[in-house]
Structure formats: C-alpha cells, structure tokens
C-alpha cells in the first residue's frame, strides 16, 4: 500500500516538474543548460524516490513499533522499562552523529555523480568534435579523474555509514545485557517473573532493529531534503514574462512590424540593443546582418517576446506586443533556427509536430515545396523512417529542409530564419534557399545571415552594429552608399570582385 502511495507521489513530482519546465521561457534555459537540468533532476529524483519508497515508510514503522514496545514494557515492569529505554537516546545520538558525518559526504557524492553524468552526456553529444580534434584521450583522462573523485568520495561516504553497524550493535548488546542483569536481580527479588524478563529480552532485540536503521533513514531524509529543495525550486519557478492581465489574442492584419525607440539588455544596465526604430511593411523580407555580437539574434528574441524590452515599444499590426498573449503571437511566427532540431520519431510525425490539425497530405505537400520530398522517399521507410536522436541519421542540410517543411505545415503568418543555411554545402544551400523563398512568400519575414549572399535579394537589409541599426535599405542602395554594409560585403568578397564569386553569383541567380 505504501509502495503504491510512494509511486504515485514520485509520479506527481516528476510530472509537476516536467510540466512546469515546459512553461519556462528561453531565458531560463540560457541560465540552466539542459545537461545540468537533466543531470540534477535524475539524481534528485533518485534520492526522492529512495525517501518515498524506503525511508518514509520505515520511519513511520520504526516510530509506531518503538512507541508500542515502550508502552507494553511500562505495563509489564516499569523498572525494567527504564533500563531498556536508556539505550534509545544513546542509539539515536549515534544515528544522528553518523548521519551528520556521512550526510554531507553523500551529498557531495551526489553532486560529483551529477558532474560525471553531465560530462558523459556532453562528450557523447560532442563526439564529432572530440574525434575530429583527436581529443579522445583527453576525454578519457578527464573522465577518469572525475570517476576517481567519485570513488574517493564514495569510499569515504560508505566507510562512514558502515561505522553505524558495529556501533549500534555494541550499544544494543549492552542494552540486552543490562536488561538481563537487572531482570535477574528483579526475579531474585520477586519483583518480576522469568517470563517478564524473557519478554523484555525479546523487546530489546525488536527495538534495536529500527533504531539501528535510524542513521540510514536520517541520511536518506537529509539527502531527500537537499534534492527535494532543488526539485521544488524548479517546480516553483515562474516565468518572468507572463501575459498581461488584460492581454488579448493577436489579430493578424498583414504583418506590419514597428519598433519604436527600443532598448534591450539581458542584464539591467548593459544594453544590447539601443534606440532601435524601424518599420516593416506587410510582406516585406528583411535581411539582418552585422558583426558577431551586434544584436541580430537578440532583435529576434524580443520580437518573439522571449524577453521583454527595457524601453520603447514594439507594435505588430498596430497592436502593442506586450499586450498580446504569447501563445497567439508565437502561433503566427514561425522560426527556423541554425540548429535544425528533430525529435526521435518518424519523419512524418516531425513534420506534423508544429501543427495539431494538419494532415499527412499537408505534410507531404510542404515537404515537396521545401525540396525535401525526394530525399525523404529515398529513406528506408520514406515518411515512416524513424529518425535517431536529433535526426542524427540525416545530413545537416536534410534536417534543415525538414524543419523548413515543418514550418510550412504550421503555416505561420510571419517567418524568422536565423542562419538557417549555415554549415551546408552550396548545392544544398540552393535547395534550402528555394524552400525558404517559398516559405517566406507573401509573408513578413526576417532572415539573419552572416553570408551576405543569402540575404542579398531581401526587400531591405538591416545592418546592425553595437546594438544599433546603422543602415537599412536594399542591397544596391547600401552598396552605392559605400557605408558599413559595403565594407562588410567587400570584406567577405575580397579579391572576388564586388559582386561576389562565381558560385555565389550562380547561387543568387538560382534563388531569384
């Protein structure tokens, strides 16, 4: 019965935890990496599970048993009862001291195990980098160091905790001897019967077992307390960005986007974007470029309201972004990121992921538009092919084409593409760009790109530097102005002529 209660309680903690993490904003995951979170959650869930399944019912049983024994002993013979219970505070004291010594060591062991599992997860995910940089030996050595740490702490923890057995045995044995000696005198004296002394010997043995377990139970409770605290902090975590009480659903009216003197910084006094003002007409394709750290992705993060701005105002179709419900806003904005993330599921289910009411025909249609249909048909089971973790059995370009098709299935009204064609070969880039062009057709869209050839055909190009918009116009106009964009462009195509090299020219023509 307790096992069922424990299983239900653990189930609730895990579902509450997972459900709440799903509600947390992007900012939370920048501060707490998934590796750290999953490592903590796994280890903490383990100690909570131990507390629920073992410690709690044993503590309850031990208390009930000890109280009952004490009552019966006092009913039988109060003098012998006093002799028998003298050992209880002594055993409890021993249990507490051992728990106080071993508890912190066990906790340290848990933290170290967390570090080891985080390192294992990271190295297994980054196996390509490790192999290509010939760092396998380094990874093994570092892992060995960490495991050595676990061994040494674990050794200390278990040695301390194993001390309890001989100590409690000695105290319990002393208690038995005391009961028998005093009992013998009482029998001789006629104050107790032989049967009473025998019963006390039995109670003495019965009582020592739960008391001997007490230090383990105290340690389990201390660990559960520490682990539970971390888990409850996650469960109680509330998003910084919440819908205003009077928030309304976003009503799409073409997709006009206006930034009015927008300031933003991840830290309160360190602005990443300064006084950004621009107006994007419905259906316009805006290319965004600038040096690393210029604020390109940040601009997108605040447009999708992953963060709230510090000052100014963002209007979408004349509606203040801060007064719109986040769900209605994000439903209308599709995002294709540089890292094409796919789930461990079939190709079809990955395509249908972003839209609850799309059909398989919609998905196939989208795959055709995104130029993914042909290669999907070439997979062992076509659309029913099971993708391995993060789509590792596909190339980067294939994964990206599927994410573009997935965005098409969701049919958002506006699109954001953040370096979506990075890390792919020129031929694949052409296919992806063709898919992207269809995806962005007649939609207000933003494309972030380091490779300027990718955004050359945008309606306008926004050039960011140091968090400020330094230029915003069409490619030809920006080139003619010979400003920041011109310098960027020339630095990319240095020695290849202002129009770029042959491959880029071919690519640009192909994508127009």
């Amino acid at each position, binding site marked *: *019965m307790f096992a069922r209660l424990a299983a239900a309680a653990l189930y609730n903690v895990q579902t509450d935890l997972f459900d709440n993490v799903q509600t947390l904003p992007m900012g939370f995951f920048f501060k707490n990496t998934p590796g750290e979170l999953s490592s903590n959650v796994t280890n903490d869930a383990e100690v909570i599970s131990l507390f629920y399944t073992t410690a709690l019912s044993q503590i309850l049983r031990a208390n*009930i048993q000890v109280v*009952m024994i004490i009552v019966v002993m006092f009913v039988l013979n109060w003098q012998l009862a006093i002799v028998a219970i003298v050992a209880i505070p002594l055993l409890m004291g021993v249990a507490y001291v051992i728990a106080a010594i071993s508890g912190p060591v066990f906790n340290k062991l848990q933290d170290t195990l967390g570090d080891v599992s985080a390192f294992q997860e990271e190295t297994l995910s980054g196996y390509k980098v490790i192999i290509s940089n010939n760092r396998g030996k380094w990874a093994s050595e570092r892992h060995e160091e960490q495991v050595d740490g676990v061994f040494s702490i674990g050794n200390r923890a278990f040695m301390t905790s194993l001390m309890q057995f001989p100590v409690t045995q000695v105290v319990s044995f002393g208690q038995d001897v005391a009961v028998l000696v005093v009992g013998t005198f009482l029998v001789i004296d006629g104050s107790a019967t032989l*049967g009473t002394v025998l019963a006390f010997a039995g109670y003495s043995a019965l009582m020592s077992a739960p008391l001997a377990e007490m230090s383990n139970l105290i340690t389990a409770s201390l660990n559960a307390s520490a682990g539970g605290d971390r888990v409850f902090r996650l469960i109680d975590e509330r*998003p910084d960005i919440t819908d205003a009480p009077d928030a309304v659903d976003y009503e799409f009216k073409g997709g006009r986007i206006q930034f009015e003197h927008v300031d933003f910084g991840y830290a309160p006094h360190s602005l990443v974007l300064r006084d950004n003002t621009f107006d994007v007409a419905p259906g316009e394709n805006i290319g965004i470029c600038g040096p690393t750290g210029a604020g390109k992705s940040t601009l997108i993060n605040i447009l999708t309201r992953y963060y709230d701005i510090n000052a100014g105002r963002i209007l979408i179709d004349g509606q203040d972004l801060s007064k719109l419900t986040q769900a209605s806003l994000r439903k209308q904005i599709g995002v294709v990121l540089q890292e094409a993330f796919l789930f461990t599921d079939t190709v079809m289910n990955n395509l249908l992921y972003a839209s609850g009411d799309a059909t398989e025909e919609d998905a196939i249609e989208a795959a055709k538009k995104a130029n993914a249909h042909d290669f999907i048909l070439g997979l062992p089971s076509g659309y029913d092919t099971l993708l391995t973790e993060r789509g590792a059995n596909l190339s980067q370009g294939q994964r990206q084409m599927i994410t573009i098709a997935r965005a098409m299935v969701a049919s958002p009204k506006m699109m954001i593409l953040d370096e979506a064609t990075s890390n792919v070969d020129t031929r694949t880039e052409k296919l992806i760009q063709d898919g992207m062009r269809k995806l962005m057709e007649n939609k207000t869209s933003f494309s972030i790109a380091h490779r300027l050839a990718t955004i050359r055909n945008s309606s306008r190009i926004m050039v960011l530097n140091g968090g400020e918009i330094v230029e915003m116009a069409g490619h030809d106009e920006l080139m003619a102005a010979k400003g920041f964009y011109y310098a960027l462009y020339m630095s990319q195509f240095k020695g290849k002529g202002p129009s770029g090299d042959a491959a880029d020219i071919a690519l640009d023509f192909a994508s127009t």
Partner: protein
Amino acid sequence: MSTDTAITAEAGEPILRPNTITRLVTGMIGGPRRGRTALAVGCMVIAMLGLTLIPYATGRGMNVIADGGSKDDLAY
C-alpha cells in the same frame, strides 16, 4: 521565484529543510491520498501490534512452564 535564478546542484552540507520534508511527505500522504494513507497506517499499526505482542505472549508462556507456574499465569 523568477527565472533569473540558476537551478544548479548545491554542493556542501545537506541541511534538513523542514518545509521541503513537509512538502515531500504531504505529496505522498496528504490531500486526496489521506484515506488510503489512513488505511495503510491502520494496517501497519495492526501488524506492529501483532509483532509487539509476540514477546509478551512468549513471556506469559514461560511463566507457565517455570518453577511454580500454572495455567493461571496465562490470564491477564
């Protein structure tokens, strides 16, 4: 609590946090599970009572077979 905080493993001593333990215990035996918990505790009490009475009964039996003992010693 806001999302500004990082939820990381805290090294060092585990301090018994009464609120956390209370919340953990309530999560298992509180709320809608009170009835089932009461039943589980009731069963446990009965089992423990039976276990506790064994040495008592053994002692009584010993009194019967001891020198000068009689069946009357079995009566409470």
